[in-house]
């Protein structure tokens, strides 16, 4: 580059990412490719997609524990007609816990919503109101009926632990448009997080740059975002200035070492993140009407509503991937309704229905829905038969999920389960298919986005995946 041996702090910072949204790094040619030693220098510098993208950001709403399809988006009158009877003609009925009970009718009624006439149960009246923006897939299946493997599959494409999550793949593929915030953000439920913990938003074998950053819903969003209280005023800014000057001395010896420059820039980014991250989640800046739209004025919806509103503010600021978990811990704390389905799903749906609809409406009103892909899903569905009399066991063979925004065709229903809602039978869609479609909306070819590990080029979609063409 140059033979210059000494830079002023201002020059240095300008060179190392002090400019707008880290563009200076990209200008330096220090972008995602990596330096001499093969270490990525700014792994989060924005990268061009493979082709013109429909969506810029993804919001994944993960209803952890597994939502019952027959009680939400896939009505099955046959269950009421044959209440208590054995489910026959479906081969071996595989349950994860205990023995299968008889067919269990849904305690909720279904209504038709939107011009498309989508059947949605009374659990989700507000979401139902957005039916014409939603593409509903009723024929999803996955390959494990155990929480952790199924969560991993939904998040990473593999039922085994140790693979990069979808958010990691997308930030790896596209970088981030805002260097002052993490590119992949995770919100957990107030009752705790999902089974399997951090591997659900892990970078797997990719560099740490691509891991999900857990955000708190109250107080400072990121752990260690700000120094302990005693480091008050401009005390930290002062020692960071000293740090920069001393680092300059060191850099002068090897001015071409981009790793050194990048680390200096990272400290400055971190310093800016302290204010940017706090501003990004400053919900008091939102009008009362908007807060109400997300249900912040009601105790049941307040927590999840805050997360949804924060998600909108984050994607607005260029964050690539936001995941919000509804449900945490075990059993009733999550959607895992092994018993008392009515209480369980009633509670979780109440907490999330209004904020979800609020999120879609708000994104739409702001013109963000076109470029933001919202996915609502669990890790599997639930059985049409009873467990412990009034609950439902796990069901990986058939379940529903929906997508909205990001170029997805709304008012659209894909596939079907059998007469009981047990197995997907028509136009079956795998998790790989879902992932392929999400990547496609982000402008990425799922079969070309690869990362090498232990001698193999891995993909989010492993060795399969077909686009769900009906909805794009």
């Amino acid at each position, binding site marked *: 580059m140059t*033979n210059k041996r000494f830079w002023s702090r201002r020059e240095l910072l300008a060179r190392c990412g002090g400019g707008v949204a880290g563009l200076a790094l990209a200008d330096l040619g220090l972008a995602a490719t990596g330096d*001499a*030693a*093969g*270490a*990525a220098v700014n*792994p989060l510098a924005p990268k061009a997609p493979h082709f013109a993208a429909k969506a810029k950001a993804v919001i994944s709403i993960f209803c952890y524990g597994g939502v019952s399809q027959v009680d939400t988006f896939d009505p099955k009158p046959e269950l009421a007609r044959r209440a*208590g009877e*054995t489910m*026959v003609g479906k081969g071996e009925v595989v349950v*994860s816990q*205990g*023995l299968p*009970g008889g067919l269990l009718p849904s305690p909720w009624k279904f209504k038709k919503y939107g011009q498309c006439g989508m059947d949605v149960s009374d659990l989700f009246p507000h979401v139902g109101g957005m039916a014409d923006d939603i593409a509903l897939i009723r024929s999803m299946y996955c390959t494990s009926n*155990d929480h952790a*493997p199924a969560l991993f599959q939904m998040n990473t494409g593999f039922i085994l632990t*140790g693979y990069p999550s979808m958010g990691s793949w997308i930030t790896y593929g596209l970088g981030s448009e805002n260097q002052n915030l993490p590119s992949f953000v995770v919100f957990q439920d107030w009752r*705790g997080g999902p*089974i*399997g*913990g*951090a*591997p659900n938003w*892990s970078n*797997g074998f990719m*560099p*740490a740059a691509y*891991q999900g*950053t*857990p955000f*708190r819903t109250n107080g400072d969003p*990121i752990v260690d975002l700000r*120094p*302990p209280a005693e*480091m008050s005023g401009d*005390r930290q800014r*002062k*020692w*960071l200035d*000293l*740090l920069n000057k*001393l680092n300059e*001395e*060191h850099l002068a010896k*090897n001015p071409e*070492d981009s*790793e050194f420059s990048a*680390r*200096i820039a*990272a400290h400055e*980014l*971190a310093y800016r993140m302290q204010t940017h991250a706090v501003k990004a989640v400053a919900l008091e800046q939102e009008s009362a009407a908007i807060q109400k739209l997300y249900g912040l004025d009601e105790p049941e919806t307040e927590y999840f509503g805050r997360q949804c509103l924060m998600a909108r503010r984050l994607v607005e600021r260029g964050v690539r991937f936001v995941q919000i978990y509804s449900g*945490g811990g*075990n059993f009733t704390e999550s959607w895992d309704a092994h018993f008392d389905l009515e209480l369980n799903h009633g509670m979780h749906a109440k907490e999330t229905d209004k904020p979800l609809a609020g999120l879609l409406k708000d994104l739409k009103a702001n013109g963000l829905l076109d470029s933001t892909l919202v996915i609502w899903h669990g890790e599997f569905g639930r059985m049409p038969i009873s*467990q*412990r*009399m009034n609950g439902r066991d796990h069901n990986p063979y058939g379940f529903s999920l929906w997508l909205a925004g990001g170029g997805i065709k709304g008012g659209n229903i894909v596939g079907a389960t059998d007469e009981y809602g047990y197995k997907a039978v028509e136009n079956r869609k795998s998790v790989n298919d879902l992932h392929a479609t999400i990547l496609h909306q982000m402008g990425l070819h799922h079969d070309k986005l690869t990362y090498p590990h*232990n*001698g*193999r080029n891995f993909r989010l979609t492993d060795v399969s995946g077909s686009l769900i063409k009906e909805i794009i």
Partner: protein
Amino acid sequence: MLRFILVAMVCAFGLYASPEDDAAVNVLKKNCLLCHGAAMQSSGLDLRDRDKMLKGGERGAALVPGDPSKSLIYRFAAGIDQPSMPPGKKLPEADLAVLKAWIERGGNLSAPAVVPAEDPKAALAKLEERPITEQERQFWSFRPIAKPAPPSAAANPIDAFLAAGWKAKGLTGSPRANKRTLIRRAYLDVTGLPPTVEEVRAFEADSSPDAFAKVVDRLLASPAYGERWGRHWLDLVRYADSGGYETDTDRPNVWRYRDWVVSALNKDMPYDRFVQLQIAGDEYAPGTVDAKVATGFIYLGPEANMRNEQTRMDELDDIVATTGTTMMGMTLGCARCHNHKFDPIPQKDYYQIQAVFFPSSRGEVPIVGEAEKKAFDEATKAWRAKLEPLEKELKALYAPYRDKIRQQKILQLPDFYQLALKTPPEKRTEGQKLNAIQVERQLGASRGEIESIMPPEDQEKSCHLNEQITLTELQKPVIDTAWSTVEKDGGKPKESHFLHHGSIGNKGSVMQPGVLTVASAPNALPKFPTPDPNASSSLRRKAFADWLTSPTHPLFARVMVNRIWQHHFGEGIVRTPSNFGKTGEAPTHPELLDWLASEFIDKGWSMKAMHRLMLMSDAYQMASDDIEANRKIDPTNRMLWRQARTRVEAEVLRDSVLAVAGTLDKTIGGPGVFPFIDPALFAASTKRDWPGKAETDASTFRRSIYVFSKRTIPLPMFDLFDKPDTNSACARRNRSTIATQSLILMNSGFAMHQAKMFAERLRLDVGNDVQAQVERAYEIALSRKPSARETELALGFIKNNPTGLVDFCQTMFNLNEFAYIQ
């Protein structure tokens, strides 16, 4: 009756089958039935009769009469759907036309298609064969290791090999690093800790020619060497202290394996023995504590919540893949579902190596002597004898109340459940049977429920008994165990199979134990012994380890010397250290690699001898600064004209902070420790916990290798600084530079507390003279004196800020120079 038979036949074979139809059947027989017939129903598809074709397999109907475009038989054969069938060859156009016409006519069969005349077992076995060609054996990493003569007579042959490379490319080697840089490099590299001020000064003052040799010897003799290089090995064997997945169960004894690794390295256990004991310690040295602990290696991987055939196959895959990449630099795992796409690794090799581990299982075995074991067994018996009567008494006390609650609960059930229960079991419908079982599971009563309906005297009895039981349970005798490997079937191992497409639904031939064929000389495959049926194990792992660790194995030594080189020089001679196959990188210095491998074997597999050889080379002692002329020719330093500049690993960074702050607790070994983690990061499930101590708790200031490694709750500092996720082998860590790393060093209570401790140390060392403090801080943290400019900046800062010294100390932890080996 006749009509019934006719109807049945019409369904099974279709109508009006003709000779043309028979031609189609022949195409199916020839191309499809091996995998979709009697021997195997790949993808759940069976093409033996028409009903089965109509029903189809996992992907749907194979035959839609009259419509080839909807018939999967045709779609896959024509390559419309992928993967095209039959695998690996294209169906001739004529045959495809026959199939198409046949489907258009209705897809009728005159008779059930049957498997080819050949014995299906023999046909399967043939399908599983994948011979190795002579050309494949000539790939560089499979050729026997020769010991090339160094190209010139340098004192250290390493330098001769490197100099030849520089000469060929017009490069000049870098000058020797200054003494302070060199000793800091050697300390961080060999022990993972910075040198003390006294050690640096002594080395600087020592003008004898063997000054550096003395440092090297001292470092290699330090117990910190095993802690540092043991960590490299733990990356390769996916070491963690818990099982991952849903419950992420702690493995409270697995630290013994970690300590075994550290101690083996410190003792300079020969590398061949080191690996032999990990694969088959129980078979090499039955009964020894070391052997029980070392075989912990095999089952270090994550453990699924559900145990079934599939998760067992995944577990074995983890073992085969880890053994392949770690010991041989071969991606064996890629051959689980098909022959390796790039390397000569037949799928059969995979399943033969899997058969080596198949008889084994995880076992937590006592590591105490016979007498102690006997005492434990007796104590356990006595303990049970005490507990059981109490439990019995409680059960009897509860029985009448339990029954009462049960009857009450039944009355509250919906009618159809009550009816199911009232119906005598033999008269229940299928649905009632299931419902009755469901209900039974709901009729139990908790202690609270029972006590709530008890009269006071029984309540008191219940409380008393429960207390007695709890107290007795606490007295359960315990025994020290190791995370280990056992063979439950001893000398009579169960059979394992070749799995076509890696699927448990597609079992092929029974597999005998075997090895990686291409890494054995032709016709020199090792013989696996037939064990005595009464033996305690199959002896398969020992035979495998004998083959693996043989001096004639082309990969075993090459892979390990490359790993040692990689950590000393920043990158390996092969820069893909766990992939010595075609998709890996070729060695930058193939002759040097072979010379080192031969030397490794000649010196009895001594790892310390290898370290010494490399550390004592001129190459190791070069400066790491750029030389502009060289950069232009070889910007990525492939020819190693300068030493590497490498950011230290997460653990070295944390350990350096502790060492510099003067808080490091150098205790060696033992159970893991739990430093502070913000609960917001792990309040993930009620099933898991992290009993973290305060950030100021000195008991957590141990070396990072002793931090409990919980698969689902990583320490943020480790996680952000690229410590691998412990779920698969990691041979070369990523090296990210991201803002969230900076947040930890800027804002965490850990960084702040250690900065205070460092400041305190400086005051104790040199008093309140600010200039002396600055000089001392540089010497401790960076092993050098500050420049005039640095002193000026630091002095100005400390003097003008009331918290100047503490903040200056935290600045030191954040410096680039602090985080890099140069």
